[in-house]
């Protein structure tokens, strides 16, 4: 019974982290699916989302707003707006001018953008940790008084529900809406979509904006969950989400969701049964193994060379 509770606790922790990895991973996978490029500044977009949410929360507190739903919704909207416009601007400034060049050029441009954004936040907000208020506290506890207590916090429940809503909304958007249909067409054959009169530039911008908005949601959630942010906040999370995207099959949206969850659970199981210090080792070993044995990922399809 104790063992089962302990295991469940690791599973819950893993799914919590994993679902936020999945939210960030979608941004990588959508951009890759459409223009075949890794947006390495995506982690920074997520970090900026977290900072914006924090600024909004602090601002509301100084105005005397105390009703939690209002604070959360306003913070979420601010974070999504700022991150989305950042995602849009990054595409215009750093990627569009070099699109269609040799593959290394947009990669370098992406890394440059990432360094720029990190340092910009360093300058604007300082390099130290800033505390993020834990707005959602408390939770359920399971287990007897003296043995291991399993806890499921309200914060974790919030993360699950929010992620679920975002994923459902995104899936519906891609499957049903006109823009989603155009997104799928562009990702299958950009040249043909262009010839049929689809404004492919607009669709590419849309994928950056959607990915950034989801990253901002993850930024707010993880900011609250971890309780602090710093300018390097996006770096590791970005790498993890990238790993999740590759694990699930880069270019595939369900793959990113699955990859995120698997990675999160693998990490928390490592922390729970081995040692917290090994969790990054495990996630990047997973990345290497996937690249070696199944480079297309779990749900990715092998790329067919077009003649």
């Amino acid at each position, binding site marked *: 019974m104790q063992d089962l509770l302990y295991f469940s606790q690791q599973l819950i922790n893993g799914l919590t982290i994993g679902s936020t990895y999945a939210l960030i991973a979608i941004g990588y996978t959508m951009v890759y699916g459409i223009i075949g490029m890794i947006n390495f500044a995506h982690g920074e977009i997520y970090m900026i989302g977290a900072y914006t949410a924090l600024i909004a929360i602090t601002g509301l507190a100084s105005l005397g707003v105390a009703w939690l739903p209002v604070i959360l919704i306003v913070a979420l909207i601010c974070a999504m707006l700022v991150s989305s416009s950042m995602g849009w601007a990054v595409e215009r400034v750093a990627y569009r001018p070099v699109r269609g060049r040799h593959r290394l050029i947009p990669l370098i441009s992406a890394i440059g953008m990432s360094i720029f954004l990190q340092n910009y936040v360093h300058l604007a907000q300082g390099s130290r940790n800033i505390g993020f208020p834990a707005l959602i506290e408390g939770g359920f506890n399971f287990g007897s008084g003296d043995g291991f207590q399993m806890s499921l916090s309200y914060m974790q429940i919030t993360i699950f529900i929010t992620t679920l809503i975002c994923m459902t909304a995104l899936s519906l958007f891609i499957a049903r*809406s*006109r*823009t989603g*249909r*155009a997104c*799928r*067409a562009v990702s*299958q*054959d950009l*040249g*043909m*979509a*262009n*010839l*049929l*009169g*689809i*404004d*492919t530039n*607009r669709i590419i911008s*849309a994928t950056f904006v959607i990915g950034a908005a989801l990253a901002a949601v993850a930024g707010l959630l993880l900011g609250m969950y971890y309780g602090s942010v710093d300018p390097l906040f996006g770096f590791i999370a970005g790498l993890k989400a990238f790993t999740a995207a590759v694990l699930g099959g880069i270019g595939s949206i369900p793959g990113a969701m699955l990859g995120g969850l698997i990675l999160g659970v693998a990490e928390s199981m490592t922390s729970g049964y081995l040692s917290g210090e090994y969790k990054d080792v495990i996630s990047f070993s997973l990345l290497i193994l996937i690249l070696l044995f199944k480079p297309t990922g779990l749900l990715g399809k092998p790329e067919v060379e077009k*003649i």
Partner: protein
Amino acid sequence: MLEVQNLSMRFGGLLAVDQVSVDVREHEIVSIIGPNGAGKTTVFNCISGFYKPTGGKILFQGQEIQGKPDYKISRLGMVRTFQHVRLFSKMTVVENLLVAQHRHLNTNLLAGLLKTPDYREREKKSLERARYWLDRVGLLEMANWEAGNLAYGQQRRLEIARCMVTEPQLLMLDEPAAGLNPAETKELDQLIVSLKEDYNVSVLLIEHDMSLVMGISDRINVINQGRPLASGTPEEIRQNDDVIKAYLGEA
């Protein structure tokens, strides 16, 4: 409608197309034929904006279009197919036709989220047009199949339907009969003639299947090794000595 004047295309040291002229008038089917490697597809690629020609002029509806980007040219009402099928193979048959009408629709995201009456009306119209063309090319029952699962001949017809929902004035088909069996070729033949007769579309065609070309073309241009060899009605081409030599070799 389309006038190609002295078109040349040079790739480094290779002159792939040399002083080729083609014109297509309203309500006309014009074919370009020639042995393999004659430069037919290169001519197509220049017209549709894939290549920027190194010489000559291309006029569409009186407007110079040479060197313009492909998407701008296609918006003027000229749409093409390729030698190999290029459908969105992971989307359904009907989605292929809907996505081709994307630019005719009001794609304002807000209108889409709010589902304004105008948005619904346009969506309904595009669905009706898709339905009409699916019926026309005999694919209505397969509307919800994944396009990649259709038989080859059906994929070819779907491609033509996808061109037609964009309501073009000029349809450019690059070897539409390639890989089709005689029965399918016959159907295609009737479809192309009906596009001209019933929908007032002009057609520029590259094709190897001589019975198809001779049967439906109003005029034929023959090119050989990048240079124009002959042009005229099917009857004139059939009797042209140069053409016979190019196809059969010197006797």
